[in-house]
């Protein structure tokens, strides 16, 4: 990965994440969470996760493919139904992967 050492990456990830985890435990009584930040944080998971999911479903071998030939899209729609009903990571992966393998076989 472009020569950047993996363990350095882990440590940088962990330090940044620790700063977030410790932030207001440390700042308690000194600073309140500003309203604009509280408002924006509500939308972080939905936005980031969708940004990771959508391209992975509609791109096939690096090109945009919104058709029934794109098995990732089809299996992804099946997985989305499970994700929507169960909100469970394990079930979504299980059903999505099985659909993916079945569609691949045809």
């Amino acid at each position, binding site marked *: 990965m472009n020569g950047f050492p993996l363990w350095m990456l*882990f440590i940088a990830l962990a330090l940044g*994440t620790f700063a977030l985890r410790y932030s207001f*435990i440390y700042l*308690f009584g000194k600073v309140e969470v500003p309203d604009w930040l509280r408002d924006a944080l509500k939308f972080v*998971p*939905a936005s980031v996760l969708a940004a990771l999911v959508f391209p992975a479903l509609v791109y096939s071998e690096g090109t945009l493919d919104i058709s029934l030939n794109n098995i990732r899209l089809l299996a992804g729609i099946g997985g989305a139904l499970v994700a929507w009903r169960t909100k469970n990571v394990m079930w*979504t992966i299980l059903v*999505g992967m099985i659909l993916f393998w079945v569609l691949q076989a045809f």
Partner: protein
Amino acid sequence: MKPTHQDFLTGARDSIPILLGVVPFALICSVAAISVGLNPVEAVGMSFIVFAGASQLAVLQLIGEGAVWFVMLFTAWVINLRFIMYSASLAPYLQDEPLRRKIPFAYILSDQAFGVTMSKIATQVPANPAWYYYGVALAIWLTWIFSAIFGALLGNLIPASWGLEFAFPLSFMALMFAALRDRPTVIAALVGGTTAILTKGFPYNLGLIIAALLGIFAGVFADKGAKK
């Protein structure tokens, strides 16, 4: 037994139902790490040091795509911004605790530890809420580490031909649907997701960061509009 230790044990016990969800998620993180080419020591090391599954999966997907390191860091930190809210919610209960406990237990703060502790506090505040939280957090962390080790051994047995990289978007999908609570969050997801499709070709996976920020703006904007 000291009352603090009693609360610690109660916390550990109350986290047992949640642990059933921690095990598979830690397994998935390790298996995912192996699938993008990490060795078992690196896979477990990542879970041990970072201890934030969703951001680990995002980084692993980006490693698989050959993204540049600062995009990985930024994406992971953005995903982990939610810890600010957890930190603020727990802070009042930890304020009288010494640093030697505050720091390590802040380090192992997790979604699940926050969830179990705050739902307990909402129904009945324990005599020593800090120690209750410590019990929950430690039970979850230990379960996570052992499951990560097991997952690394398991991941080595899974052949690459299974196309396991498709498990990444599937896992994010489950987490995403859990985050869709109302109209503004759905709008945030639609704008973030669509922007990510349109900016896919941008260098260094920068489109991901642009998409995440636009989605957040859209959510805030929709929320403001709904309140007026």
